[in-house]
């Protein structure tokens, strides 16, 4: 396949960026999208140009590093991560626009690389269960109903890629934040910190400059791991419950 790529190039966080146009040829439908970008980069290096910087690591859809907006969609046209998107989803002669995540809370670092450290700070605000090493009781001391365990797992699958934020017209991080809150809050082990967790994480999310949620649902559509939109509703419920409880105290 022969393709025209229009790629966001930006020297660093302070520089202005612009779309640059490149041609790539000999692209096989079996290639992953990132392997196609590898081809472009090899070409660029040999012609003395700087290759396009992009985040990627595991290339098997689990580390959450890759983060491209492809033709306007976070992670491109299939419901998967960019690294698991294959060129068979495109046609010979296509023009493909490639941009970084666009969100106020995710500033561009260079080209297609953005700073997602806001997500780490949301987790640091309460996205954990306090269980210092050595303090754990026997694992079978606390059975967890399978339905709760499955609910926790479904939300724990979040890979922290940030597609939800990139897809949201408001740049909100509700899906990411709710996924962690729901994972931990449903478990008996997570119960003691149930209220502080939701209040602190939501406060941190707001402090990071993520937008508000208008339940557009783009986040859940873009999520490569299928975190459901209902996750946000559950978080809101948790937040209301915690707020009421705090008010009573």
């Amino acid at each position, binding site marked *: 396949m022969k393709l025209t790529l229009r790629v966001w190039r930006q020297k660093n966080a302070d520089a202005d960026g612009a779309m640059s146009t490149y041609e790539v040829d000999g692209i096989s439908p079996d290639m*992953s999208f990132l392997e196609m970008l590898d081809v472009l980069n090899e070409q660029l290096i040999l012609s003395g140009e700087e290759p396009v910087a992009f985040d990627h690591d595991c290339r098997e859809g689990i*580390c959450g590093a890759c983060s491209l907006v492809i033709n306007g969609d976070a992670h491109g046209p299939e419901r998967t991560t960019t690294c698991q998107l294959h060129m068979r989803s495109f046609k010979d002669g296509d023009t493909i626009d490639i941009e970084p995540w666009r969100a106020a809370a995710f500033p561009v670092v260079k080209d297609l690389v953005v700073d997602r450290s806001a997500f780490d700070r949301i987790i640091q605000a309460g996205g954990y269960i306090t269980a210092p090493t050595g303090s*754990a009781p026997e694992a*079978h001391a606390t*059975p967890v109903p399978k339905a709760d365990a499955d609910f926790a797992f479904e939300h724990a699958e979040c890979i922290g890629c940030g597609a939800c934020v990139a897809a949201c017209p408001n740049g909100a991080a509700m899906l990411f934040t709710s996924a962690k809150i729901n994972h931990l809050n449903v*478990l008996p082990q997570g119960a003691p910190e149930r209220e502080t967790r939701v209040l602190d994480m939501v406060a941190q999310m707001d402090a990071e400059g993520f937008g508000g949620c208008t339940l557009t649902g783009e986040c859940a559509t873009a999520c490569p791991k299928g975190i459901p939109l209902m996750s946000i509703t559950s978080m809101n419920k948790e937040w209301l419950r915690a707020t009421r409880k705090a008010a009573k105290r």
Partner: protein
Amino acid sequence: MTSYLEYTTGEPVVDTKAPAGPINERWDKRRFEAKLVNPANRRKQTVIVVGTGLAGGSAGATLAEQGYRVVQFCYQDSPRRAHSIAAQGGINAAKNYRNDGDSIHRLFYDTVKGGDFRSRESNVHRLAQISVEIIDQCVAQGVPFAREYGGLLDTRSFGGVQVSRTFYARGQTGQQLLLGAYQALSRQIAAGNIEMHPRTEMLDLIVVDGRARGIVARDLITGKIDTYFADAVVLASGGYGNVFYLSTNAMNSNATAVWRAHRRGAYFANPCFTQIHPTCIPRTGDHQSKLTLMSESLRNDGRIWVPKAKGDTRQPNQIPEDERDYYLERIYPSFGNLVPRDIASRAAKNVCDEGRGVGPGGQGVYLDFADAIRRMGRKKVEEKYGNLFDMYERITAENPYEVPMRIYPAVHYTMGGLWVDYDLQTTIPGLFAVGEANFSDHGANRLGASALMQGLADGYFVLPATINDYLARHPHRDEVTDDHPVVQEVLAETEDRLNLLLSVDGDRTPDSFHRELGELMWEFCGMARTDEGLRKALDRIPQIREEFWRRIKVPGTGEELNQSLEKANRIVDYLELAELMCLDALHRSESCGGHFREESQTPDGEAARKDDEFGYAAAWEFTGTGEAPTLHKEDLVFEYVHPTQRSYA
């Protein structure tokens, strides 16, 4: 300069610090004898941890909980992305919840035997003891392991063992365990006990007066090279499988931290022990950048076969039952499709070499679920393996519910690594190595679901106990600063190396060298090795190295995010490490575990160990680039599990 092949044999390693006495009392004994640091003094001591995978993440969190000041690094943009996250299958623990005859002793026995008698008994036994605590710890953190309807934890059996001791979280066990460690780490970061440096890569080790006192690291965004000092340094930087270019490792996983430590005096043990995983998705062409593993839990229900006839190009569903060769079930009737990884991988290679491989290029075998779907129903199969099937379909555009999967072996894990004693300390005092970065407890072959177990055992339980002893005995009152001549020298060397890479301005890309080296290693130091092939590789590697420094092209500057520079710098180290791997493989003229020497096999083609000659761990000492290294042998003593030729028939 002497030839690289003319290595010398130095003093054997005699003291591994493992206590004497009954094996099940050794860990208690060591912990009791270890000196402690007064809680009030811990704040004054700094520990650097490099890496945030299972071993590094758990170590950093636990050390910070104990009250030490931790300074931690990862090259990823977040500590949550370390490659432990990609582990699929599960984590072993001798809980015996199934009442199926499991015990600490059995897990110990299985691991020593599975490692083909090339691991240290004391360490392996400790690992088995700690395994049960790991599960408790992870459950307390909220790791959503699979559960039964009664609310108790589910387990399954996993490659190479006959008990169900593997705990799992669908096909994402590594992800869930890592997020548990990452969350514990996050809690400590928020508490101000850990200074976390993401997107920062260790480029060298600072050794002052014979002790590890810090590291040189580069901020990958600004390009700034900085020094960090501490009372002890812990390397948790993972394995070196990416030396093969194509592997199941993450693209940026690399060997620089361990190799630089090796250059500074840490012995590197058993570098030739690499694990080739039998169930990966076959490559599709030259553009391939990495290989994807399909959890070997698939072998519990999938049946592996190839056509009986050579060059059979019919679609798999068109090949009748009696024209299929379920070769693992045929050759190993009692273990069948569950034989250990090295055996399954080599068997796949053999049938492909015979011309019976399937798929493009004949480099694949079928992993067929038709029987499992008939037996359990599609729904049950979906529940057990759904995400793996989806992943397979996304990559290959084939539906494994209808067409058998195609799989082929790929480099997956490295059992070799920095030599460590029972305390996980390297031969440089104050430098510790945990997880895949050390030469570890897996001997010549790692059993499935044991990497996660070892990473977390090292990080949560072993290192935090043993490092106390070192820190208590060596309270560094003297500050090391940038002015120290040793620090100046290490900094200058690092800067010079990067500047040289930027200035060559040749005509070949970093990837082109990496690919060339990887192909060479796969051919001559891969699944089967020969004296002749290894010599060829050893001949060729210095030539590639020479060419590299003449023709490498790295655009851009060092004062910015420069991914080509990062790659090129890692390749510098691969080009030396590869040479040591081949030399180690050449010197070990026996077959054991993942290391198969064609000259050393039984009449029926099985690996033939030579315990009298090679019953040791080979710890290599660096003497200079391209210079013959010095071999130090650690004799392996087996008091509890007596070496037998492995048999899985």
